[in-house]
Every structure is written in structure tokens, then in C-alpha cells.
């Protein structure tokens, strides 16, 4: 009885280690060839560029609601002209990278996990191994690299559209002065601290989400149920880990 409980407790630790070994296997066997570049770019299109629309729409509305709430709160102190500063800081540092990572996990992470899981269920992975092609290099690595590359770019798009949403709401609807809005944004937001702080986060989140997706997909049970479980676990684990890592990174870098 005690042994079962102990193994249940240790299982997540063992899985973390297994996942780490998978990462090492992926990066250890890396060979910089033209085919890797082509595959990575293709995957960047499939999982990155195809996520653009949802990222832009969500960014736009987040920017609008953020400025609505901020203006409401700041008005009480007569400081509603500070709205661009508040929106900018919270976006670049926190909301941009975190929300994009969560959306990316739902949009791209699931599709990667399901795709690899299904390839396994239909013996495509086995066929590849039998052709002396390493599926970790051919299937997992390009998707991992594509995620790593896509998320910072998507975060930048998210931020840009959120600022656009904030501009439309604050200036267009609430009638704030555009000069004050832009000058506060320009002088109050620092490239190194605010923008790059969020940028590093988004790289870590990109690696995290895509590693979890390829790992769960690759080790999915080759059944319909197994693929479903892999997809669900990808979303749950990456969402939780993104938020945990966000706190850890923020407390170190702030």
C-alpha cells in the first residue's frame, strides 16, 4: 500500500525526468541540414502563422478591456491620462507573453500532440523508424523549434494589436488626448526592462508549450483514447506550467 502511494508521488518526478531526457535526445541528435530548416519553416507556418488570427483578435479585445478597466480605476484619482503607461506595462511584462502562451497551447499545442499521437496510432512513426529515419529528429524536433520560434513572434503581434485596441478605445471612444497617450507610452516603457523582460518569458513559454506537446504526442498510447488523453494533458500541463514559470521568472527578473 505504502509502495503504491510512494510511486504515485514519484510519478510526476519520473515523468519530468523522462521529458528532460526526451529534450536532450531531441537536441543531442540535432544536425543542421537543409531538410531541418525546411521542415521547421513549414511547421512554423502551420502552427505559428495559422495561429495569427486568433492571437490578433484576442489581443485587440484584451487591449480594449484593459484600457476600459484602467480608465475606470484611474479616473477616481483624476489620472486617466496615465492609462497608456498602465496598459503598456501590464501588457509587455505579463499579459502579452502569458495570454499568448495560453492561447498557443490551446490552438497549436493540441494540434501538434494530436497529430503526433495519431501518426503513432497509424504506425507512421514505426514506419519511419524502419526506414532508418529517426522520428524524434524528423517529427518532434521541427515542431519544437517552430514553437520556440513562433511564440515570441506571436507575442509581439498580440502586444501590437492590444496597443491598437487600447488606442482605439482610449482615444476613439473615451476621447483621451493622443499626444499624451503616445508620449506616456514612449517615455514610460523601457525596451530592456519591459519589452525584453516579456520577450525572454515568451521564448521560455514557447519552449515549454511545444516540448510538452511533442512529448505527450510522442508517448501517447496508440489508441483513440490515448490521443485524446495526450491532447488534454498538453493543454492542462502547459497552462499550469506557464503560470508557474511566469511567477518564478518574474520574481527573479523584476
Amino acid at each position: 500500500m505504502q509502495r503504491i502511494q510512494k510511486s504515485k508521488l514519484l510519478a510526476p518526478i519520473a515523468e519530468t525526468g523522462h521529458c528532460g531526457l526526451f529534450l536532450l535526445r531531441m537536441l543531442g541528435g540535432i544536425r543542421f541540414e537543409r531538410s531541418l530548416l525546411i521542415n521547421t519553416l513549414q511547421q512554423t507556418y502551420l502552427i505559428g502563422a495559422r495561429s495569427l488570427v486568433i492571437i490578433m483578435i484576442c489581443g485587440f479585445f484584451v487591449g480594449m478591456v484593459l484600457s476600459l478597466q484602467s480608465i475606470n480605476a484611474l479616473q477616481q484619482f483624476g489620472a486617466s491620462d496615465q492609462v497608456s503607461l498602465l496598459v503598456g506595462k501590464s501588457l509587455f511584462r505579463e499579459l502579452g507573453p502569458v495570454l499568448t502562451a495560453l492561447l498557443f497551447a490551446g490552438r497549436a499545442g493540441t494540434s501538434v500532440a494530436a497529430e503526433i499521437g495519431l501518426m503513432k496510432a497509424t504506425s507512421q512513426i514505426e514506419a519511419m523508424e524502419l526506414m532508418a529515419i529517426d522520428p524524434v529528429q524528423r517529427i518532434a524536433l521541427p515542431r519544437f523549434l517552430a514553437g520556440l520560434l513562433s511564440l515570441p513572434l506571436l507575442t509581439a503581434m498580440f502586444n501590437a494589436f492590444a496597443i491598437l485596441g487600447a488606442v482605439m478605445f482610449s482615444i476613439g471612444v473615451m476621447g483621451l488626448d493622443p499626444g499624451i497617450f503616445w508620449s506616456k507610452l514612449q517615455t514610460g516603457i523601457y525596451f530592456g526592462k519591459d519589452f525584453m523582460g516579456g520577450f525572454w518569458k515568451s521564448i521560455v513559454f514557447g519552449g515549454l508549450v511545444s516540448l510538452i506537446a511533442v512529448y505527450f504526442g510522442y508517448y501517447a498510447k496508440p489508441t483513440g483514447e490515448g490521443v485524446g488523453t495526450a491532447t488534454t494533458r498538453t493543454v492542462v500541463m502547459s497552462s499550469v506550467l506557464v503560470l508557474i514559470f511566469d511567477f518564478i521568472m518574474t520574481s527573479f527578473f523584476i
Partner: protein
Amino acid sequence: MDIPRGSVVAIMGPSGVGKTTILRLISGQLHPSMGSIEVNGKEVSSLSHRQLYESRKDIGVLLQNGALFTDLTVFENIATPLREHTDLPEEAIRERVLSKLESVGLKGTEELMPHSLSGGMARRVALARAVILNPKIVLFDEPMTGLDPIAKSTINLLIRETNDRLGLTSVIVTHDVEQMNKLVDYCYILAAAKLIAEGSPQDLMQFKDPAVDQFMNGRVEGPISFKYQNSKSSTTANPS
């Protein structure tokens, strides 16, 4: 069990007897707990990961359902081994893929996606992919399962043709007695995880052993039980 170069050999037996396991042992996906497997004079289980991958370039495998890559066209499916393992220019790849595709009678399908192929066509594309690197050995896992009689005979013919034209050694795992009688040079029959008989199909039809007779003629009554047995099977037939 010996499989001579250049021949078409079948490994037959009822489902679940370990036929596919033998293929996996030959291709090095599984390691034997006892005994040894030599391919081209090399002990498979002693090979390192890299050597194993190197040796697999000489082995083509046709898996049970074909296992075509669903995200690639027929052309790209067949071209994949060439792109991964050779430095051929694009024209040479194109030429080789199209000639292989023609030899399995599917010229003109190169731009189709695997999901728009019929079962028999998919199996033929998989055959073309398995032999594109001109391997020495081709392993077939149930190449006839789930096909209509015409497609079965076509695959049958193609296996024989490809084998003789390219000088291959073909190992076929199957339980389709009728098709195998037409195709293979030599047969091994397994039952209850044991080799119970071997010989040419004609010899085996005359075989006196009750288990062999039961399998070859598809009888319900006989030493091979169709009931699920947890421990050792009751089949005790042993040819040697």
C-alpha cells in the same frame, strides 16, 4: 529457421502466434530473450543504435496497413527514403520515384494524398516505398489482409515480380494459405509459439501432422484450439 538469399519465404500460422514478432526481431525493433538472429551475417541484437539504422537501409518493410505518411502526397511518400538517405538531385529522385510507381501500376497517382487511395492502391504505394532504396531484404507484414481477391492477386504478383527483378529476399508474414501457395518458395508454419512445420507449399499440403493439416485446410477441429488459453497451449506437435 534459415531464409536463403533470393527466395520468397512465408511465415504462417494462426493469429497471435508470434509471426509479427519474428519480423520485429529481424528488423531489430525487439531483442530476443533467447537465441540469435543474423541478417546478412550480422547479429542483429548486438548492433548499436547507429549500426542498426545503417543496416535498416538494406531492409524494406511493408507494415500491416501500409502506414503511409498521411500528410504527404504519394510522390513524397515514396521519395522520403531517398531524400533522407541519398544526395540525389531532384530530377534523379523524380525519375526513380516515377519508375517505381509505374512498376506497381500506379502511374499518374503521384499527386494524390494517401486518404484518397483504395486499400489495395495504398498497399502498392507502400510496396514502392519499401523497395525505393533497392534493399536486399523486404519484410511484409500481412500484405494481403483486408484486400479484395483481385487486389490480393495483384499484390501477390507484384511481390514475386519485384523479388525476382531486383534480386531481393522476401519474408512474408501471413495467414492467407491460398495466396501463399501460389507465391512462395518455402514456408514455415508456427503454432503455439513453436515452429511446427517447414517445406514448400506443395509438401505442406501433404503433411501428415494434424496441426499442420488443420491450419492448411482451415478446420475447426484439431490440436490448435480456438479458445483463449492463458498458460501454455495444448498444442504439442513438433516436427523435429
